[in-house]
């Protein structure tokens, strides 16, 4: 836990000194402008919650994937990857902590999106259940980091994994119910969607903004936590196995 905390703190300091790392703080408000403009044009201001939440989740997910990949490739080009692997620390824990730091900082994009809906469009999206929103955002950030850590394992193995990374964005926006609710997806696709933690996150975040009482809050939070933990476990296992493999092939530092 202390390793996680120190690696988190280190990455937070590095991120604050490298603002380009959190480019979502620029892109999320721009997405919000687009979605709010569409909903206004369609006279559907009731969809404002979607317009505010979708950019946040999209940005966080793409950032988690990007960070996971960049973390490995940057350490490689910086010449620190081998030195890091040569330490007794658990590399999967270090990776997870560092991705979590970036996604946590990036949850600030929710505030930005909310402000964009309010200022240019005059729509005040009320947070009816702030605690639910807070818990859901925190758990989603953790789940994203955990799931994305599996991606970083691929980067250890394949320096060209960026192409794969790109293909993990839009399918997950759809499966995760970010752009449209899961209930709008074809019936055969819904069970698959429920295996993606984003679908639980997006539903619960929308519930947190709705005046209606939040139904089954704890089980839904637990679903995010369990799916995030599963992603984390898969990521950890993959990183460990792949590190063993590259020790044998001698390709750890290869770019």
């Amino acid at each position, binding site marked *: 836990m*202390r*390793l996680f905390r*120190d*690696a988190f703190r*280190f990455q937070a*300091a*590095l991120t604050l*000194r*490298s603002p380009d790392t959190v480019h979502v703080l620029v892109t999320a408000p721009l997405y919000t402008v687009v979605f709010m403009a569409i909903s206004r044009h369609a006279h559907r201001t009731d969809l404002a919650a979607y317009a505010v939440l979708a950019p946040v989740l999209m940005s966080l997910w793409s950032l988690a994937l990007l960070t996971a990949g960049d973390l490995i490739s940057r350490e490689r080009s*910086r*010449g*620190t990857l*081998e*030195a*890091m*692997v*040569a*330490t*007794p*620390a658990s590399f999967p824990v*270090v990776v997870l902590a560092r991705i979590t730091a970036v996604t946590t900082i990036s949850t600030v994009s929710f505030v930005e999106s909310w402000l964009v809906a309010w200022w240019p469009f005059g729509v005040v999206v009320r947070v009816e259940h702030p605690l639910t929103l807070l818990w859901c955002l925190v758990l989603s950030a953790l789940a994203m980091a955990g799931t994305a850590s599996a991606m970083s394992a691929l980067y250890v193995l394949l320096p060209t994994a960026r192409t794969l990374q790109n293909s993990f964005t839009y399918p997950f926006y759809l499966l995760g119910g970010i752009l449209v609710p899961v209930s709008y997806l074809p019936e055969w696709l819904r069970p698959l969607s429920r295996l993606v933690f984003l679908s639980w996150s997006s539903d619960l975040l929308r519930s947190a903004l709705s005046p209606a009482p939040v139904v089954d809050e704890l089980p839904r939070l637990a679903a995010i936590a369990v799916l995030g933990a599963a992603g984390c476990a898969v990521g950890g296992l993959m990183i460990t196995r792949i590190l063993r493999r590259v*020790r*044998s092939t*001698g390709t*750890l*530092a290869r770019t």
Partner: protein
Amino acid sequence: MTDAVETRSLRRTFPARAGRGGGEIVALGGVDLSIPSGSVRGLLGPNGAGKTTLCKILSTVLLPSSGTASVLGHDVRHETLAVKRSIGVVFGGDRGLYGRLTPRQNLQLWGALYDLHGRALSRRVDELLERVGLSGRARDRVDGFSRGMKQRLHLARGLISDPRVLILDEPTSGMDPVAVRDFRGLIGELTAEGRTLLLTTHDMAEAEAVCDEVTLIDNGVLLATDTPARLAARLSTLERVEADGVADDVLAGLSALSGVSKAHRETGGRVVVHTTTPAATSEVLALLVSAGVTALRTVRPSLEEVYLHVIGDRGMLVSP
């Protein structure tokens, strides 16, 4: 004295890339190496000789193809964690640091990776910054540092876990002469503390100055291991004679002697005679004395000359 580092028949191969006829590239071809505890061992060899491969295996980031390697009695293949805890690695050059952060933040990360946290970590970071002379720049960004300062930070990073064995890869690269002198002093302190150092370098003067023993490596094979002085003495055939006030006809006579490989006059007028046998050296000295030359001396080969003699002067050519 027990051995801190020991390798037996250590072999590492890599598959040859397409277009190079298949097969395999031998990076290390059955290396037997023993480094006694508390000593400084220099590892000298040209690019592609196998130095880095050996260091990577010892630091556990690369597995041997066959043979064994151990650090403080721990096998690098099976007791990885114990090896990681007892070894520190120091790289040369500008890479290996987080330039946008301060040296303190850099060291705090590496300390955490070696299970140092809280006050113990802060204390250790302060000690090391003081030791490498960077405490006055602890709050500055590393990317504004000179190369020499970065090297000192590299060294501090390698020492963060207080390792008993330290691998130094070109540690004085880019340092100014004063920093190099200080670094050599630091090496002395580290060995006085009982640490074992493996130093890869191309700087012969550095190897002569700080190493107890030097190992020459090329094409994945160890060519020789000895103290710098004994290594030079082994090649006493490379001895040369230097003399002042030598007339041209005497120089011609020296060139004609058997066992003299080369005799020439340097810009300042000094004559340098290279011999290939001890007997030839005696003949050269006798001829010079009989010609009335009194300002003369014999010179043992430097480590650089030994290196060039054993490895061969291959210019910029890298081993396949």
